[in-house]
């Protein structure tokens, strides 16, 4: 039986009323969970897992997978409306999405995110069907040296987020790297900058940092000043204009392969996919200075990449039994609890099940579009809530979100501290984005470096021995040279 016949049978199972209902429920719960700061898709799948024990395995996995996709979109809603990312991977959307909301364009921001997510997720699912096995074989060639070189290139690209002042941009980037050093050293397991606190042994959690630097800082800035009217909620203003569609089309086209290909590589997270997509858009833009001030491409690209990443991340799970991300690892647990072992034999021994799940991925993307597009005016209307009530709830939900990560108030304290830092950054016009991105990239890069050097016995030449790694390194050098020249010119201009 060929692939398309198997897929057709899969649709037959996925479109059964019961499974459709579970997919709808999963999408709705996922969107709601994504909206709540701190409660990410990993926690949500974990919470709902016990409720699936009494269900048919196919229905259970369809619901949990739909929840996973739903949470990707849900996280975008609060990023755009409140500058508080509901899901870590939606943090980058805050940069331009929230600016669009402040300009009265929250509707187009949410609409382009929904459409981009749909197209990215659907195209990635088609790619999964056609090229899963050969692409997985290629992704497996990505060892620590290749991963290290890719991460170094991504760090180099972060210089593109520096903004108007290179000094302040680089400061933000390197301060983020310093914060990322807190915790156990990945090589020797020695505590670094923990000052005896056991809560810091695993490092500084990303969620409190992001909620503090984006969400809390924005609330502090808003409460200190005079109340502003936040948004225009007239119906026509929530639709995408022809210009919006033209501006975002290529961003969606580019975001899909970026997200999908990065999803194939185990160990990367959705944040990396959104970051790379954002920086790709900035590099391709005719007027990159618009980024950070409400450029629709800055929402379309990352959101598309995000959903395409979510699909790409299940490919190693289905084909090799390797979970590509924490959320997918919990999904893998769901598979095993239902007596299904992810890996190549899944396609042979349970082909009806796996093709039904793949078909349900298409269905979930359609459901999410149908569910979320009409709800955009409702979401935008959240901003009609009187500002005292809105800000009090934002602060309260941030506290709740930070607390629920590890059930400890230390994370809440961390979030407040970073909120004050974020407030200071905004007052001094220091960009927040490089800080956030390097907190994620720093530990990944250091771990990859240690593993690479362990493989080679301390010899850096291993990086040049791999053609893939050498190519990425060459690109990294070119990016750093270009950034350094830009830095030198700006420094001279600043001190003239």
């Amino acid at each position, binding site marked *: 039986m060929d692939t398309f016949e198997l897929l057709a049978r899969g649709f037959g199972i996925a479109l059964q009323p019961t499974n459709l209902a579970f997919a709808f429920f999963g999408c709705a719960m996922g969107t709601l969970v994504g909206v709540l700061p701190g409660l990410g898709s990993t926690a949500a799948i974990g919470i709902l897992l016990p409720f699936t024990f009494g269900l048919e395995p196919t229905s259970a996995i369809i619901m949990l997978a739909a929840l996973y996709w739903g949470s990707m979109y849900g996280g975008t809603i609060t990023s755009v409306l409140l500058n508080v990312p509901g899901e870590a991977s939606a943090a980058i959307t805050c940069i331009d999405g929230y600016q669009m909301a402040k300009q009265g364009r929250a509707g187009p921001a949410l609409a382009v995110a929904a459409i981009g997510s749909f197209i990215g997720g659907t195209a990635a699912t088609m790619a999964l069907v056609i090229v899963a096995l050969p692409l997985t074989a290629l992704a497996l060639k990505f060892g620590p040296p290749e991963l290290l070189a890719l991460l170094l290139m991504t760090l180099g690209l972060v210089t593109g987020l520096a903004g108007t002042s290179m000094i302040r941009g680089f400061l933000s980037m390197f301060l983020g790297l310093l914060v990322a050093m807190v915790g156990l*050293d990945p090589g020797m397991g020695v505590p670094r900058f923990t000052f005896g606190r056991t809560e810091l042994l695993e490092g500084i959690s990303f969620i409190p940092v992001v909620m503090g630097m984006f969400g809390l800082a924005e*609330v502090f800035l808003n409460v200190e000043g005079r109340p502003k009217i936040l948004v225009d909620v007239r119906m026509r203003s929530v639709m995408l204009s022809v210009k919006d569609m033209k501006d975002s089309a290529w961003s969606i086209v580019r975001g899909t392969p970026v997200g999908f290909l990065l999803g194939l590589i185990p160990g990367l997270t959705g944040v990396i996919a959104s970051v790379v997509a954002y920086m790709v858009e900035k590099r391709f833009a005719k007027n990159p200075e618009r980024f950070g001030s409400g450029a629709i491409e800055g929402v379309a690209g990352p959101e598309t990449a995000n959903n395409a990443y979510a699909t790409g991340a299940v490919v190693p799970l289905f084909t090799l039994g390797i979970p590509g991300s924490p959320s997918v690892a919990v999904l893998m647990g769901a598979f095993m609890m239902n007596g299904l072992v992810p890996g190549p034999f899944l396609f042979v021994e349970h082909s009806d099940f796996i093709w039904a799940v793949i078909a349900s991925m298409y269905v979930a993307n359609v459901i999410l579009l149908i569910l979320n597009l009409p709800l955009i005016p409702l979401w935008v209307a959240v901003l009609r809530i009187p500002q005292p009530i809105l800000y009090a709830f934002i602060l309260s939900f941030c506290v709740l979100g930070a607390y629920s990560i590890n059930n400890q108030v230390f994370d809440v304290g961390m979030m407040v501290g970073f909120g004050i830092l974020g407030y200071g950054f905004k007052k001094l016009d220091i960009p927040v984005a490089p800080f956030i991105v390097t907190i994620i990239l720093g530990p990944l890069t250091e771990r990859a470096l240690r593993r690479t050097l362990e493989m080679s016995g301390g010899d850096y030449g291993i990086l040049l021995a791999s053609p893939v790694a050498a190519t990425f390194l060459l690109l990294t050098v070119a990016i750093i040279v270009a950034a350094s020249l830009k830095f030198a010119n700006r420094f001279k201009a600043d001190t003239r």
Partner: protein
Amino acid sequence: MKRSYQVTGLVIVAFAIAVILESLQLTYYTELGPGPGYFPFWIGVIVAVLGASMVYTATFRRADPLPEDFVPSRSGFTRMGVAFAALVWTIVMMNPLGFRLTNLVFFLALLPVLGCTNWLTVVLISLAGSFGVFYIFDTILTVPLPIGIFSF
């Protein structure tokens, strides 16, 4: 903004020096490559240089005027101060008092200062934000929240 950047730059340099000194306590390099102290040391050096550059450019370039809203008004300071105090209250009292009572006081204190003057609205929103949210998270979503010493 000149003074702001000069002070910020100096603070950053001082912070970077502290990081460098702390990193010198750690192993710098091993047979298999950089040790735990390697990256913090060099990143600390870079941050110190950037902080010094910030002081230098602030001193020798034409200063940008302070933005109009750079320094908050007295009422703005009050609102921010109360928001900050409310957050500190939740950090200190969440475990002893529990989520519901802590959040109830949080909303009751914060809403009037932020501008919600209708007392009925303040009370209803405070109850929703404390007991209502607790019900949704603890009972429906089974996300455990602190109960406190009063078991309430």
